[in-house]
């Protein structure tokens, strides 16, 4: 077996010279700014009054800092609860997807069993079925389980997704078997190999699954809309809809609420950014 040096670090080793400006930056910087503009507008609007937001022609810069929107949102007695609900649903979904997704992915990557390819194909096929088609059957299952109008109805369908299993499988396939074989020779069991040897190398995949699962569950509106009936069980996204009525919308509150809602997503991404990018650009191995 070749001695392999395994590295989960990025491609910029410490002590490297600072990045030089390349002509690409002239194209990429304005492009990045264009992508950031909606967020900037969201942030600016959140400190505007309703009148300023709806002014015609639109005000691009606030006349002053008005925190009325934030006061309205944070003054809503249910808002902390909605935040906690979203956090519970997203956190449980992330943890369960990392655990169950990695187990499934490892099985498909490393184990041969009767019908494994067919099973993988069937599982992947479910990824192309639109949610609208599975909404009613999912609702029926949740109803049968007695979970409708509870956070369980939001958590259970998200416990593990085909996408997480598939992403882990693809990543595990890039790892050399020799590492695992060495561990088996040393007497490690399958699960021990997975959790002690493979998982530490799979940090980019873990980060990717974690970020994408968090984003999906945190931002989901359509399923909570169907499964939840009482405001004590609302997630943030569902709660934010109540700031917009049939004829009136408190835009300052909507914007402020969105700023508060988007913060955890930004934090989650920034924390996992390095490994997230790695997962897209490297296999985590140096030969």
């Amino acid at each position, binding site marked *: 077996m070749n001695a392999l040096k395994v590295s989960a670090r990025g491609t910029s080793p410490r002590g490297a010279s600072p990045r030089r400006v390349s002509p690409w930056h002239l194209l990429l910087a304005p492009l990045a700014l264009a992508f950031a503009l909606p967020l900037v507008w969201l942030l600016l609007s959140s400190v505007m009054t309703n*009148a300023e937001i*709806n*002014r*015609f*022609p639109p005000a691009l810069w606030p006349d002053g800092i008005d925190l009325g929107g934030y006061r309205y949102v944070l003054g809503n007695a249910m808002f902390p609860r909605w935040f906690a609900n979203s956090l519970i649903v997203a956190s449980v979904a992330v943890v369960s997807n990392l655990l169950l997704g990695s187990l499934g992915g490892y099985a498909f990557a*490393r*184990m*041969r*069993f009767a019908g494994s390819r067919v099973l993988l194909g069937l599982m992947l096929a479910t990824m192309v079925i639109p949610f609208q088609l599975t*909404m*009613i059957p999912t*609702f*029926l299952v949740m*109803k*049968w*389980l*007695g*979970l*409708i*109008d*509870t956070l*369980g109805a939001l958590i*259970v369908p998200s*416990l593990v997704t085909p996408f997480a299993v598939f992403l882990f499988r693809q990543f595990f396939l890039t790892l050399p078997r020799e590492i695992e*074989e060495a561990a*088996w*020779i040393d007497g490690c*069991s*399958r*699960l021990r190999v997975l959790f002690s040897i493979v998982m530490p190398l799979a940090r980019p995949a873990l980060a990717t699954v974690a970020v994408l699962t968090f984003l999906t569950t945190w931002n989901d509106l359509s399923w*909570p*809309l*169907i*499964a*939840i*009936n*009482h*405001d004590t*069980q*609302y997630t943030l996204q*569902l709660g934010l*809809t*109540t*700031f*917009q*009525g*049939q*004829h*009136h*919308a*408190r*835009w300052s509150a909507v914007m402020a609420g969105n700023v508060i809602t988007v913060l955890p997503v930004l934090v989650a991404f920034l924390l996992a950014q390095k490994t997230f990018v790695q997962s897209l650009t490297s296999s985590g191995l140096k030969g």
Partner: protein
Amino acid sequence: MTRTRGVLCPVERRGLLKGAAAIAAAPLLGACSQGASDGVGADGKVTVELWHGQVDIAKDAIQALVTEFNRTHPRIRVDAGGGGVVSDAMLQKVTAALAAGSYPDIAYVFGSDLASIARSPRVVDLTDAMRGGPTAWNSFWAPVREAVTVNGKVRAAPALLDSLAVVYNRKLFRQAGVPFPEAGWTWEEFTDTARKLTDSGRGVFGTGWPGTGDEDTVWRLWPMIWDLGGDVVSDDGRSIGFAGQGVRALDTLRRLVEDKSVYVDPKPGGEQMYQVFLGGRMAMVATGPWQLPDIMDAEVDYDVVPLPSYTGRPVTISGPDTWTVFDNGSARSRAAVEFVQWMMRPEQDARWDIRAGSLPLGSATERRPRWRKHSQETTGLAVFTDALDSARVRPVHAAYPQISQALGEAIVSVLLGRDSPDKALRRCADKADAALLIPR
């Protein structure tokens, strides 16, 4: 090197199975905490689930009324959780709930959505309850009665009523030296007035029109079509009933576009359009009574005039919303009917209308001192109420959503100058006629 690939040792398998069992059992434990209830408690109290979809002031008004009902009706408890949905998404939620067999006892359903919902056998027939109810059926305005009647049967209880009229900014009229509009004015006068009041230099528009293609874009055109003798569906029910009239109505929009006197609002709900009006940059806007509180808050010097017409005859549109009752067993249905009957009584209706910014459901409410006082204190409110005499409603037809969508696209294409009225309506007719041919 020997190994048994893909085979777990017994200990590992047991552990895995235990873990899987624990995960599988978790939801079942949740299931145990919720018993299947028919809504009648051990104490004989019936619980009724209400999905009202209201927010903000209207939600507070509903909550207050529900609290009072629960206090005065000890054998019924209305659970006004709201349904986890705003009224705009109620059709989607109720449709899913009906398909899954887990629906509320009462839902706040838009009048234009009633036909879609009423196809369900779970919708309670309220014909006897409404016509023999505590409030005389004939005391409700005709549009109210029409809006909840499908094939001669009352399929829902009226919940809220409005109508369209033109609110205008008196200050802008004075500045432009244009006389105030009066009842009986024509669409030609309307377009001329809009042109005179448009001042591109100051960023002032004569009028506005929602440009998203949704129902808010569409329903403003129906009074024009009705006035010209057209209808949503032809008498034989096989095609649209506004082929010629629609072209003429769209031509009025085309004139506004050519004159650059119409602000086309890209935001759903006409939010931006109303803000332009509130900001003193729009002279006239067709709207309902719900907008008056905001107009007064913005201290706009305003007044209200009935919609213009082509013929000189008064005509407007009303969009009543409904309390639709679903069958969850006889005890709950009876309790739900009792609640909606109570809500429709003049004393409750007046309180709800004043808070929600809507109109009285009938003459009995309109005569109440509380409403009269409110009407006197609110400039122009009486114009909306009086317009109910000439108001019509969209037909409760299962194909209406498709017809509306097709007409919405036609209106937007004219507003954006992409199509002529004739071409836009031909395309609309093709789509809408195809929808009408589908057996329902």
